[in-house]
């Protein structure tokens, strides 16, 4: 590739990355209801926009690695030895997000149980209160 050609390619990259970033920001604001207010409450739209944002970011990452960092012009073995290990991250993401969700569920479970016990305690106190006048108190000797 000639010097002039590769120079042009660089400025093409600048425009491409800038436009993709602007599209990302636009979609993000759209999903949060800043552009059209009523859209902020639609759950499935939020997920769809999340997916679009992730896809666009991965495209930006691909472009930076392959064009700016010249991975395209390296030997295939080098590209594979650098890029393949990152596949492990897919499992890390699945595992840790699963873990996070389970922390939340467990915390909610604990909170609900705490509330139940509180109610049971209150019920007991009320019962004891009713009985109080007739109860004979035993001294504890054990």
């Amino acid at each position, binding site marked *: 590739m000639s*010097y002039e050609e*590769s*120079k042009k390619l*660089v*400025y093409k*990259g*600048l425009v491409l*990355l*800038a436009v993709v*970033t*602007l599209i*990302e*920001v636009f*979609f*993000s*604001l759209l999903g*949060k209801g*800043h552009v059209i207010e009523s859209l902020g409450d639609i759950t499935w739209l939020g997920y769809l926009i*999340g997916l679009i*944002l*992730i896809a666009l*970011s991965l495209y*930006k*990452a691909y472009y*930076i*690695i392959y064009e*700016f*960092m010249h991975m395209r012009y*390296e*030997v295939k*073995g*080098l590209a594979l*030895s*650098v890029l393949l*290990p*990152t596949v492990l*991250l897919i499992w*890390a*993401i699945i595992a*840790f*997000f699963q*873990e*996070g*969700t389970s*922390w*939340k569920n467990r*915390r*909610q479970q604990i909170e609900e149980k705490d509330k139940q016990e509180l109610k049971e305690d209150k019920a007991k106190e009320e019962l004891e209160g009713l009985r109080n006048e007739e109860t004979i108190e035993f001294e504890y000797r054990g």
Partner: protein
Amino acid sequence: MATTDSVTETQETQEQQGGSWKGGEAPFKASYGKLMMWYFLLSDAFTFAGFLIAYGALRFSSPTWPVPDFVFSTAPFGVHDAPLIFVTIMSFLLIISSVTMVRAVQEGHRENKNGVVFWMLLTIVGGAGFLGCQAWEWTNLIATEHMTVNTNPFGTHTQAGVYLDAEGNETEETFEMGDSYLIHKAGEGHGADHGEGDHEEHDYSVGEHPGYVVNEQGFLQRKFLVTDGPDEGEVMVQQFGPKAFGALFFFITGFHGFHVLSGVVFLFIIMINAASGLYMARKNGHEMVEKIGLYWHFVDLVWVFVFLVFYLL
């Protein structure tokens, strides 16, 4: 025996050619320095991935999470309610400095010393600009909005309701479930531009008040009347947001900012070296510029994901 002989034979022939065993061939046809830079970046990518995945896991584990376009909606020169605009400018700075870095590497291939120095200088300016923006962002979060590593004043309402005024009477400030709020320090108010709340002198001693609670750190947590859901009719107090948010924000953007800072330092050193003509005399030419270029693009690459995870999603 025959096989052993042939093995020694092939080894000998390779040695005669100055072959792989003696380091005559570069693995993957890349120089040692460039290859090791790639592997360093791979390991660094895992560090950042660990940070970002931890952010994801903690975000999933929390019933509410600060909304980024509410948290990051201020910009210098008194700009408010401009969600994500400032970080978009920061992203552009990094993208532009990445592009000027590519130009520096190209000029390095042509052995054009002045071109290398010029484009590296622009890259340094871009990097320093990014650091300046980040310094402003941090200052705003720490000094104005009082977010620290373990205090997160950005909360989210889990029920609809209406705020109480200082005397404990209902106001006209209503909010919906999922609305965000920022807990201010007592006496500092919301700022005139928010157009809410009165700014009379109130009793800001620590403890319970008719319309608010002042905690020991001096934060004023307003009271509100719940108008919807199972707790309807109860008076509740604004709660702080998930604690992990501040620590995650400062550690992840701080770690990235530190990469940018060290990148700027190395760019500067290599620019000086290039200007002195050191690389013109070297056998491998301007390879140092390529190596710092790889690192600099990686910093931009990481920002793509920090931007995605922290600000966009």
